[in-house]
């Protein structure tokens, strides 16, 4: 379980997040939604200890992630940011193998190689594994990053917009795989998704942020209410039921 308590992040006088408190239960898929600038990425990077909070704490199964040794946290939690620009020229396989670093510290065992192969296969990258990242399309690269994070084989996986650069087919596949990672492998997946319908369709819980505060947190059914969504996004949103699932419509 990830718990955050009175978490605040400010830059000078400008507070971008908080104070917020809450928890993400173990298991399942949790999506963070909200308008631009709501603080989703800030919250995620704080949970993943990539940035230090101005105040407040984040604990992962009771351990403070900002105080615990980074190498120890890396065996329980993996995080992928939205923007990844690599100048280093590495192949897909090398990149995914780096996901094993927290476990192998550089010396890959046959078990590590197994994880690498499975992660490559899981994201349909086996055929591309010898390619350099700069020879890939944006979508292929995105999948390679996610494969690296999955190869890390952590209980908690935090992803900032993993659907970036993915077309409809690969977007849906990505969500199905993350769903499978939660259902079959027992992982706790937390992700930022722009499309509310994707978030509602594939998540067990949705956390909505607005103006640096957690506005709502619950099951997709609880959040997919016209008033709730309209308030969060500051735009009239209608909710229809299609094939037994709530579907938000915010445009004509």
């Amino acid at each position, binding site marked *: 379980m990830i718990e955050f308590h009175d978490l605040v992040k400010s830059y000078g006088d400008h507070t971008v997040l908080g104070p917020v408190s809450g928890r993400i239960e173990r298991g399942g898929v949790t999506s963070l939604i909200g308008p631009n600038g709501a603080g989703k990425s800030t919250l995620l*990077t704080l949970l*993943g*200890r*990539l940035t230090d909070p101005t105040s407040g704490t984040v604990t992962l199964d009771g351990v403070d992630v900002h105080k615990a*040794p*980074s*190498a*120890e*946290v*890396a*065996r329980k939690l*993996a*995080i*992928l*940011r939205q923007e*990844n*620009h*690599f*100048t*280093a*020229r*590495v*192949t897909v396989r*090398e*990149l995914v193998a*780096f*996901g094993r*670093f*927290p476990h192998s*510290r*550089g010396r890959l065992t046959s078990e590590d190689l197994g994880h690498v192969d499975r992660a490559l296969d899981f994201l349909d990258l086996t055929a591309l594994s010898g390619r*350099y990242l*700069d*020879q*890939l*399309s944006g979508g292929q690269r995105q999948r390679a990053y996610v494969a*690296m*994070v999955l190869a*890390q084989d952590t209980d908690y996986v935090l992803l900032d917009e993993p659907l970036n650069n993915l077309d409809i087919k690969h977007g849906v596949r990505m969500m199905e795989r993350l769903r499978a990672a939660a259902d079959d492998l027992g992982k706790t997946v937390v992700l930022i998704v722009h499309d509310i319908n994707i978030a509602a369709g594939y998540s067990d819980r949705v956390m909505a942020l607005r103006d640096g505060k957690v506005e709502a947190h619950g099951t997709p059914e609880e959040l997919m209410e016209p008033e709730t969504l309209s308030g969060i996004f500051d735009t009239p949103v209608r909710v229809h039921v299609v094939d037994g699932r709530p579907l938000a419509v915010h445009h004509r």
Partner: protein
Amino acid sequence: MRRLALPAAVLVTLALVAASLMTGGYDIDVNTLLHDPEARRMFLVSRVPRTLALVLAAAAMAVSGVIMQMLVQNRFVEPTTTGTSEWAALGVLLLTLLAPGAPILVKMACAAVFAFAGTLLFLTLLNRIALRSQVIVPIVGIMLGAVVGAVTLYIASATDLMQTLSAWRSGGFSSVVRGHYEPLWVVGVIVVVLYVAADRFTIAGLGRSVATSLGLHYKRVLFLGLAMVALATGVTSIVVGFLPFLGLVVPNLVSAVRGDDVRSNLPWTVLAAIVLLIVCDLVGRTVVAPLEIPASVVLGAVGAVLFLTMTLRRRALKGAVHA
């Protein structure tokens, strides 16, 4: 084929090392070495140190280039494009003024400390610059280096040390004799440390976020890398002066062929740097013999052409895939 590539490269390098040992003002060959004690003495006092200095300085600059390019995540950084070398020069000049008779180890430490502080300043400046394109970074470094260089120049001219400064900055291997080059052996230690910590540097090259997510203590790696670069640059600039382009051309060349796995690249990086520097030194020594052009000058000319070619070819290769 592939298995033989590295041994072949080692052989080529050894042949060049031998050529370097056999080139020079005195007539020394295998025969005189065996029978003439005076020739043997010359060989050990002058030839061997010079060639060893070439080998070690080449490794120092190439390894510094690799580390900096990984840590800064920029293809165009190396000690001479980040001000690191200029800071080392300033440090040595100040020490020459304040403590003229300081032993070489003190000079070396002083150059390394200045190089470290200067590179740290460069990184701090970079953090404050919002626009961090591949080209902006070395421009900032070169500008910073120019400012520091100007200060050094001013101090030197005000204290009548111009001649010392320019003699020493031009990358001369001609003055390297026994008793003068030995500090360069520290480069060997740096290469070993880099080999051991190679994965950490490759991962640091993936950026701070990815490195942290993988459990790397990013700051520790950054400081370790900076210390290695500062030491390598400090020692090299004391013994042989500035060697431009080496840290730029060699790592980029190796990366273009083999990607960026620091550990498996390391032998290639070191060998390629040695080959390039020895060739430049041989050219400089033979074209105007018995005079000589400093290796750094030849290196500047060759390096610039190589680097331009590489940049243009790589862009053509990448084509539309990469913006």
